[in-house]
Structures are given as structure tokens and as C-alpha cells.
């Protein structure tokens, strides 16, 4: 099981508390995690990456094992600790005022 930590506003939108857990088939990457997340919680489609272009929204960042992996390729393999569920994949709203 993959653990995903969502920011507050996406937890309220998805109506979940704390982390969510997902089953990801195949390689564990940013893209496969987001695919699984959006399939399980369709209301999150468009909030993390653009509906049409599939590109990450500008003020959303990704962390894995305390490393900023925001700019890693969407199909790059994530660390084994993420794939095994030891560490959560963190989706974070950038600190940008407001």
C-alpha cells in the first residue's frame, strides 16, 4: 500500500482525515500515484495537475523521503520506502503568501 499525505484543503475536498492509502499497480512513480489517487478520489482531478495538459499545478510540490521530487520526471521511480509504504508520498501546497 502506498501512503499519501494530502494538504489540508485537498483532505477537506476529498473528505478524508489523515493520510490516504492506495494500491498502485506497476512501477511506483509520481504519475502512477496520482493516477491511483484521482481514480479513488475523482474530486481531486484537476487540483494537483491540469485536466488537459496533465502538468503539475504551479503551486503544488511533491516530497518523498524528505526530498523535494517536484521536478523529477513523472515516470521516474520513487524510493523503495515510498513503494513499500514505510514513508508517505507528500503532496504540499507551496508556501506562497495569502
Amino acid at each position, binding site marked *: 500500500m502506498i501512503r499519501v499525505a494530502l494538504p489540508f484543503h485537498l483532505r477537506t475536498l476529498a473528505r478524508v482525515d489523515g493520510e490516504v492509502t492506495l494500491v498502485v499497480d506497476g512501477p511506483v512513480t509520481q504519475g502512477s500515484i496520482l493516477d491511483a489517487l484521482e481514480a479513488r478520489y475523482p474530486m481531486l*482531478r484537476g487540483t494537483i495537475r491540469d485536466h488537459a495538459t496533465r502538468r503539475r499545478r504551479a503551486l503544488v510540490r511533491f516530497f518523498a523521503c524528505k526530498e523535494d521530487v517536484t521536478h523529477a520526471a513523472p515516470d521516474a521511480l520513487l524510493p523503495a520506502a515510498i513503494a513499500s509504504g514505510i514513508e508517505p508520498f507528500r503532496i504540499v501546497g507551496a508556501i506562497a503568501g495569502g
Partner: protein
Amino acid sequence: MTAIRVLVGTRKGAFILTADAKRAKWSVDGPHFAGWEIYHMKGSPADPDRIYVSQTSSWFGQIIQRSSDGGKTWETPGSPPADLVDAATGMPKAESNKFVYDTSAKTGKPLTTHQWYDGTQHPWEFKRVWHLEPSLDDADTAYAGVEDAALFRTTDGGKSWHELAGLRGHGTGPKWQPGAGGMGVHTILLDRKDPKRIFVAISAAGTFRTDDGGKTWQPINKGLKSQYIPDPTAEVGHCVHRIAMHPSRPKTLFMQKHWDVMRSDDGGANWREISGDLPSDFGFPIDVHAHEPETIYVVPIKSDSEHYPPEGKLRVYRSRAGGNEWEPLTKGLPQKDCYVNVLRDSMAVDSLDPCGVYFGTTGGQVYASADGGDSWTAIVRDLPAVLSVEVQALE
């Protein structure tokens, strides 16, 4: 028993204010969608308990929320369990927040460019829904005015949205440019007497009209003069802040422009200034009395550089003559040290008699008048900055 429900969108959530027909004692429910910007929320005339909400975030984009019970519960249309998976494709649905410009050859227009702040051309990019206008007779149909400027429509209760591409693509689009707050469709007026006629206003492109249900559009800005653009009488490029009409007289339109209050009596074909003796003709909202089509309301703001009331006095101005002659309405409003703004979508009228008038401020107050503007009360005063106010009279 008639009840009044005021729908308030703020920078940090939505609030629902309710009262009985006396409009004297109010209860406050909220925040809904706490922490999100609520650009607009509006109930359906066909089913007042159907409410559409534009919930936005610079971080997480656009969400459409919908209530079918007057705001007690909410859903993102298309994402309840029954709707989760499209039987044909096996793919998840929940595309209620998917606003994609229509560039198809059959129904759409090429995604061309509009004018950017520096005069160069810039591609259209969807940012948020500024205004939601439910259909007059079908609760599942609603229009969305969006930034970058375009008009979308849903006919399935908000599950999916499709662009009426004739507006963006009718020809003058490359000359449209954003105002300081962006380039969005902020006003949508539906004509009760002619279902195929729709008016929209765009900051900062001007006012447009369709007579065929949204297929084709024409600019209707003749008579506007804007000294801040290269050609003050240009066909498009005017920073229209708001337009309003009385339902019984849809050919008469009132406009609060960046500067100037204007009027048209021929469906927007020609405009004339009616600023008259206002202390400032800059402002954002404008609205029309529910029972007196020649009675209109504006909130003068000092200038485009100083977005607060002249002299620190919050005054609604009322004209009973359809413009030019204005009277200040001050009873119950702060008359010193008041430096709030009143945004374009933050004024509404109810249909009771006497007519109720409501407006919200960037200081978080919502003021109400139960006597057509003669006197005012802050029905709530410490909300986040108010972005929009709508009102419903419920039986």
C-alpha cells in the same frame, strides 16, 4: 411564510445568512469550504434549493460545488459513488471542475491569443470561474463566466461544462486585455422575454450580446468613452465593471464602468452617461430595484487608485429617475473612517415589498436594507473580505 437567504462568497469560505420576511434578525451559517476563495454562489430560479458555488484556489484550481437542499449539504457534481465511473469508458468522472476551451473544428474556435498587459499577444489560459448564472427555468442548466474570458454552460447540473466558443472566437478576441484583476466574464444577464438573448460583460473587453442562444456574439459598446485606452471609443477594450437590468425591461441596461455610470435603452446598441451628480462615477456594483425599473443603486468609490469611499463615508447612491439625479443613502452606514471597497458581484436585491437591498464589503461586513435603501443594518460584520452577495426569497 417567506424567508430570505443571502449567499455570501468570501476570500476564505462561503456563508449563508437567513432571516424571515421582516429581515430584522439574522442567523449566520458557515464557513462552508473554509479557507477557499468563493468567487460566487447563486441559487437556481427554477429550484431555489439548487445552489451552485465557484470554489477556487491559486494552489489547487477550480472546484464546482452544488447543493440540492439549500446549502445544508454539498457535493462536487459527478463524484458521488453512483457517478464515479463512466460505464462506457471505465474512467472516473468528476469533471465538474474541467473547463477546457473548445478548439474543435465542429463546435469550437481556434485557441488564439488575447492582448497581454505589455501589448503582446498571450494565449488563453483557464484560471477560475468568476460568476455562475443558473438558467431561469431549468435547475440543471447554468452558465459560468470564467477567467481567461469565456462563457461555459452545463446542462447536467454541473457535472460537465462546455464552452460557448462563439464569444471568445467571434473576432475581437485578440484585442481583449486583462484589467488589474484579470480578464474574466463577470456578468451574465439572461433575458426573461427572449430565451436566446444573453448579455455578458468582460473586464477589460466590454459588453457583448448574443441573440441566438450563444452561437454568435457582437460587441455592444457604442457610446462608451474610456480615456485610459488608446482609442477612447474603440469597439472593445472598455473596462466594464458590472451591468444590470430589471427583468421586466430587458432592453434597458445599466452599467458601472471603470469610470462612468451608463445606460442603454436599446439592448446595448447605444449607451449614454448617467453619472450626473455622483461624487465619483468610479465604482464596481450596480443594481436595479425589484419593483421600480427606474430605481438604481451604485456605491461610488474614490478612484481607480484609491479603492475606498470618498471622504471615508460609505454611501450607497440611489437614483429614482434612471440615472443623472442621485441621492446618498447613509442611515446605518459608517460616515467616517470607512475605507472598505464593494466588489462588482457584491450587491443584490430581493423580491419582497419593500425591496431589500444587500451588499458586502472587503472589510467583511454585509449590509442590508429592508426599505429600499432608506436605512441599513450590518447583518454580519466580521467575515473575510466579501467577493459576492446573492439573495433568494423563499416561500
